[in-house]
């Protein structure tokens, strides 16, 4: 509880620190970026900590974090001289808004902390990897941090998110196993408030049409809540199918036709929700084409609710609040007159320097986020330039080119120690191309495997596509009133096309002309919305309307369209290309791009709920289309939320049982000796580089647990992950054999040189090692090596390389 309060207080302090910066940065948003102060503050602080650690100026730690927090406060005070009076006036007038934001953050933070408290274990899936990276970010005195699963090398992965969470843990003095769970709660709350605020700002801007200068009305916050629900509270429709199947509804033919792996064989349930262990996992493995039992298109289709429920502290999860921050920044850029050309800016330095800092961080938190959101940001700038551009003038586009180039270059330069290292990694991969396991060549490849089945696609995307389609068609109708009844097109057209395609796939041979066209449709359908969206974006009529030349903000609909169009583009990319990786398929490409699509469509969808609702409920409008639309949306969202509620109950075992935020508490119960030994190792001074030897083995197992739980590097942890991170196994070769040699040797004096070569300070012998190596070989360590720690289950030997006495 104390840590929970400490995290909340620290988050508030960070928000206060960032307030002047947010004020300078989000001058065009009605809430002035209030909701983004927490991620912004953390990001600014984390950047300074990382930079000083990378340049070896100050050692990473609580002291450095506190010092930089004070320096940020100092900068904030200096900013107050210019904007203090306006800020104070805004805060006074919008006190209720501030309270609501804070209440929403505190509520979401507490709620997700409770969820984590009922399933806090850091075990299974990729949690050991995440915990390892969090621990190494905590232990590291300089950056890049040492790779916990490959001693002697530094982490070759985007680790900024772990560093940010470690900074929070440092400031609050939270043990890593508790910090892991609180980090998830913090991210959940920051994402919820961020998404809500984004939608609320869009709604306010559209509703006020520039009439009011600041503040967000209550009704806009309600739509913001809808946006947060779409992003974080909703699952996909597979949950509904699980429910139906668990209660024996639907025939075998239906389940076989749907072909969701494992669903047809899932057991029935006596409870109202499915009770099969891990049933909720299937919703993220929907897309696949299985021919003769062989998977041809295994993909991952995670969505934010699942990620938070699963509890893997992965980069794509940690990136969410910061991505939303950048989307808000893009919106502000779109709204700011002269932002691109550098005119009319009140505080020139910050708006120029901070966007590259925020954009560059995305790739460092989650490599997949940089390109899409840099594109969005630049597109927002382009849209603004397009709007401001007098006809037949090239000059503004030259300014835009400079601005775009400068921003992109700045985003890379500000994180040069990281991106430079990444470049070195690419070069290393290219050099290792002739080895056995290596990824080389151009990073993109055509995806020539099967496309996504429409049925699977709609299971994943029906509610968000329904909203995006509605927005597109309604905008088109406004643009060209003669284009018919868009709502009817959405309501009837989409299922019709879906049925047509599925029917064609079932009955038409793929090699016939018509059949080929039907089979091709899923691969090209996005061209339609893209063309329509693009045309609308470039249409000057959609930009005009309520604004007077340059004095009021532009309509926000084009920006929302931009979000939707980018989402469709990303879907198109995942249907056409794959990122070249060690898996050799499009699993990761779909996974990471779909995740972004969800975020973009959720924000656009939150606005669309308002947009359509406002139009259909406006005075003088009567008819069936409005209620029908609302009813269809409610059904789709409710159907998708079935998953969330049921999965939440399953994962937390209906909130019954002891609650704790300590992710290693389970170890205290299952293996107290190992827990004690890991605690002992964790206390080794972090200033001194240590290497601990443990047995190595397969991924997703207990192997690598010592390094994972302490952050102290071991010779080799999960080898498969190392290959993924480094694109090659060249650095790993021989290590597993050497580890076996050291543990299995009956005469340990023969392997002392190996220990010395790898700089091993401690040799760990626990249950995992005893399960793999003969006991007499393990006992032989005694003598050549001193016993540093011993209890009933674990012995830790100290080799000569140990840098701490004892």
């Amino acid at each position, binding site marked *: 509880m104390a840590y929970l309060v400490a995290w909340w207080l620290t988050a508030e302090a960070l928000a206060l620190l960032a307030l002047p910066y947010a004020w300078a940065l989000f001058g065009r948003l009605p809430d002035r970026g209030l909701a983004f102060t927490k991620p912004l503050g953390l990001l600014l602080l984390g950047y300074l900590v990382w930079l000083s650690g990378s340049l070896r100026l100050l050692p990473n730690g609580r*002291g450095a974090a506190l010092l930089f927090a004070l320096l940020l406060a100092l900068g904030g*005070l*200096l900013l107050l001289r210019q904007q*203090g009076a306006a800020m104070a006036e805004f805060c006074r007038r919008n006190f209720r808004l501030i309270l609501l934001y804070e209440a929403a953050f505190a509520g979401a933070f507490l709620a997700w902390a409770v969820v984590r408290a009922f399933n806090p274990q850091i075990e299974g899936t990729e949690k050991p990897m995440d915990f390892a990276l969090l621990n190494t970010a905590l232990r590291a005195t300089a950056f890049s941090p040492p790779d916990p699963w490959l001693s002697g090398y530094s982490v070759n992965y985007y680790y900024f998110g772990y560093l940010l969470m470690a900074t929070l843990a440092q400031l609050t003095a939270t043990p890593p196993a508790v910090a892991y769970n609180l980090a998830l709660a913090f991210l959940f709350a920051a994402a919820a408030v961020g998404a809500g605020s984004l939608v609320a700002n869009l709604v306010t801007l559209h509703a006020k049409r520039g009439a009011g200068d600041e503040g967000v009305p209550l009704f806009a916050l309600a739509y913001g809540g809808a946006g947060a629900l779409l992003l974080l509270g909703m699952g996909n429709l597979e949950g509904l199918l699980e429910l139906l199947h668990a209660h024996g509804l639907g025939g075998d033919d239906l389940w076989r036709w749907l072909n969701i792996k494992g669903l047809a064989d899932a057991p029935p349930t006596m409870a109202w929700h499915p009770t099969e262990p891990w049933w909720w996992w299937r919703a993220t493995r929907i897309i696949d084409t299985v021919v003769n039992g062989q998977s041809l298109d295994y993909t991952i289709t995670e969505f934010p609710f699942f990620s938070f429920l699963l509890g893997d502290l992965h980069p794509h999860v940690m990136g969410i609040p910061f991505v939303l921050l950048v989307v808000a920044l893009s919106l502000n850029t779109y709204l700011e007159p002269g932002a691109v050309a550098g005119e009319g800016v009140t505080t020139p330095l910050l708006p120029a320097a901070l966007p590259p800092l925020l954009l560059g961080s995305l790739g460092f938190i989650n490599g997949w986020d940089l390109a899409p959101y840099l594109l969005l940001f630049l597109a927002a700038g382009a849209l603004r330039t397009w709007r401001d551009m007098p006809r037949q003038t090239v000059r503004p586009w030259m300014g835009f080119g400079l601005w775009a180039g400068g921003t992109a270059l700045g985003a890379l330069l500000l994180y040069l120690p990281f991106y430079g290292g990444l470049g070195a990694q690419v070069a290393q991969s290219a050099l290792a191309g002739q080895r056995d396991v290596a990824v080389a060549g151009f990073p993109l490849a055509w995806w020539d495997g099967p496309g996504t089945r429409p049925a699977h696609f709609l299971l994943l995307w029906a509610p968000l596509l329904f909203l995006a389609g509605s927005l597109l068609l309604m905008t088109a109708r406004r643009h060209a009133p003669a284009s018919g009844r868009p709502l009817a097109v959405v309501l009837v057209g989409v299922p019709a096309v879906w049925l047509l395609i599925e029917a064609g796939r079932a009955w038409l041979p793929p090699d016939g002309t018509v059949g080929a066209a039907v089979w091709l449709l899923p691969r090209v359908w996005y061209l339609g919305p893209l063309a329509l969206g693009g045309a609308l974006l470039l249409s000057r009529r959609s930009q005009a309307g309520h604004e007077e030349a340059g004095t009021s903000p532009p309509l926000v609909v084009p920006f929302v369209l931009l979000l939707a169009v980018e989402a469709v583009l990303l879907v198109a990319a995942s249907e056409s290309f794959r990122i070249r990786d060690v898996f050799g398929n499009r699993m990761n490409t779909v996974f990471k791009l779909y995740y972004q699509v969800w975020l973009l469509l959720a924000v656009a969808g939150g606005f669309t709920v308002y947009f359509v609702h406002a139009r259909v409920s406006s005075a003088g409008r009567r008819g069936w289309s409005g209620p029908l639309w609302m009813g269809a949306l409610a059904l789709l969202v409710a159907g998708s939320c079935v998953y969330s509620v049921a999965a939440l109950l399953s994962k937390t075992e209906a909130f019954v049982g002891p609650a704790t935020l300590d992710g290693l508490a389970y170890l205290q119960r299952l293996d107290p000796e190992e827990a004690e030994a890991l605690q002992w190792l964790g206390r080794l001074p972090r200033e001194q580089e240590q290497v601990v030897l443990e047995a190595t083995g397969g991924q997703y197992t207990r192997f690598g647990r010592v390094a994972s739980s302490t952050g102290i590097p071991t010779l080799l942890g999960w080898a498969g992950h190392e290959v993924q991170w480094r694109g090659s196994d060249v650095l790993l070769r021989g290590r597993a054999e050497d580890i076996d040699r050291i543990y299995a040797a009956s005469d340990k004096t023969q392997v002392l040189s190996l220990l010395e070569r790898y700089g091993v300070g401690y040799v760990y012998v626990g249950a995992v090692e005893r399960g793999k190596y003969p006991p007499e070989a393990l006992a032989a360590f005694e003598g050549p090596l001193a016993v540093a*720690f011993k209890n009933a289950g674990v012995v830790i030997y100290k080799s000569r390389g140990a840098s701490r006495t004892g």
Partner: protein
Amino acid sequence: MGGDRRGPTLELGLFLGLVGLAFLLRTLRLDLQPLAPQETARALVAWQLASGQTPEWWDAPAACLATLISFLLLGATEATARLPSALAGTGLVAALWLFRGWLGRWPVLLSAALVAISPSALATSRMAGEESMAALLTLLLGWGMIQFWEAPSRRSAVLGSVGAAVLLHLGYAGVSGALFLLLFGAALYALRPSDSAGGALRGLRPRELLLLFLMTFLAMGGGLLLFPAGVGFSSLLAWLRHFDLPPDGLPWPQTLLILGGYELPALAIGVPASLVALRRWPGRPLDTALAGRSFLGLWGLLGLLFYLLGGVASPGASFLASLPLTIVAGAALAAGAAELKDRDWRMAQGPALLALTLLGFGAITLSQAAQSAAASQGPGAPLGLVALALTAASFGMAALSAPRPRAVAAAAALCATLVLTLHSSARLTLSSGWPGVLALDRDGVAVVAEQVGLARYTQQGRQQEILVEQDLRPAVAWYLREAPRLSPSTGSGLRYAPQVGAGPGVILAREEAVVEDVAGYQRRVVPLGAQWTPRWGEWRALARWLLAGEASPDEVSGRRMVLWVRS
């Protein structure tokens, strides 16, 4: 008018009396206790410089230089190691005179009285360390900053540059002070109207000031050429280390208890008063009195944060936080009580009586403390409880019946503050040390000297390696500084001594750091100072400690150090 003539004389007399009292409390019997390990770190460096040796490292060059001067003038002893700190502590009381115009005449007197007897101020000033010096310099520079903004002068700018450079070389405390000043300066800049800021900066030559600052910084860092290798920003690293997490997490419940136990008035009155000052300041940015209070308030609140986030519950960090809060609290109480008129004084008889009761209680505690340094089971706690109940009842009655209840309450709180502070100081300085601080007592010193003397040479006649736990190393080095050809090794800490294989001849470690005996070594226990570690939730023990400084034997760990001598 006659009052005006007499006032300053009486006021000055009282103030000088308080300064004298502060001097006596800080300098009398400075060698009563042996130097604690963290004190010896400073003393050792100064001694090495004085004897022509080169220290390994230092983190508060200015404090070490001050100690060096003391050694050169008066010889290297425990008392002279502590003298600079004691003098700076006295100077702090004297420096409050500068705040007379901002806080008021009587408020400054009361603040000075409270600082003079403040437990953490006394404890810190009677220890060899940099905190008192850093606090004095921070106070002077803060005062100068506000003055400078009002009436800029070249002389004050020059003094400020030099002072800031020296402050940055006063260890973690100096860096903390510099940060307080920096933030306050930024707040001053943000709040003051543009024209006044412009006026303040006109006519100055920033380049010259920067050069002066850098030269002073480098000169201090290099020990005025006595230790050129010391140039750097070691104080900043010490500041960063101050916040390093201890292995078992932050001691903040203990930290809070200690601060609450010793500095309750500063917390209970100083924090709200500081917040009020900071709240009012933006509305009246040109009010220098409010700026002065805000400076102290900001310092106090940030100091509190630093203290709570620190890795140890150190008296120095507690002092840095409580000093400005004590000043603000004293000023607030005096200002409140000054509203009492003649009739109110009669109504305030009840509180006065109770103040006397509390004074009696303080005297009892004092006598108890003086009788025995060990844990007491005397009548202090019951007496304290009775006094507390009577106090509460009488204050309530007096406040309800008086026409100016707030003023009566302020007067009563003032009495209680004085007595509580006196009581806390008495038990801190005379009965037990600061909880949680490692101490090496005389017996321990003697045993270490004897053991190390015996084990000085191996059979081969080579110098024996002595491996000493990190925390204790400077203490052992200091007390054995005269031993010929004997220098402690630079080995790492010995938290897990039993696992040492073929190791050094003598091992020293804290007792609790060791779980087993070491094979091949003989064990000998060396007493350290008795310590009491307050624990969260033990309310009875806590109440007894707060009221009477009593701690039952099972709550006191007679801490010991263990020597293992290879047999």
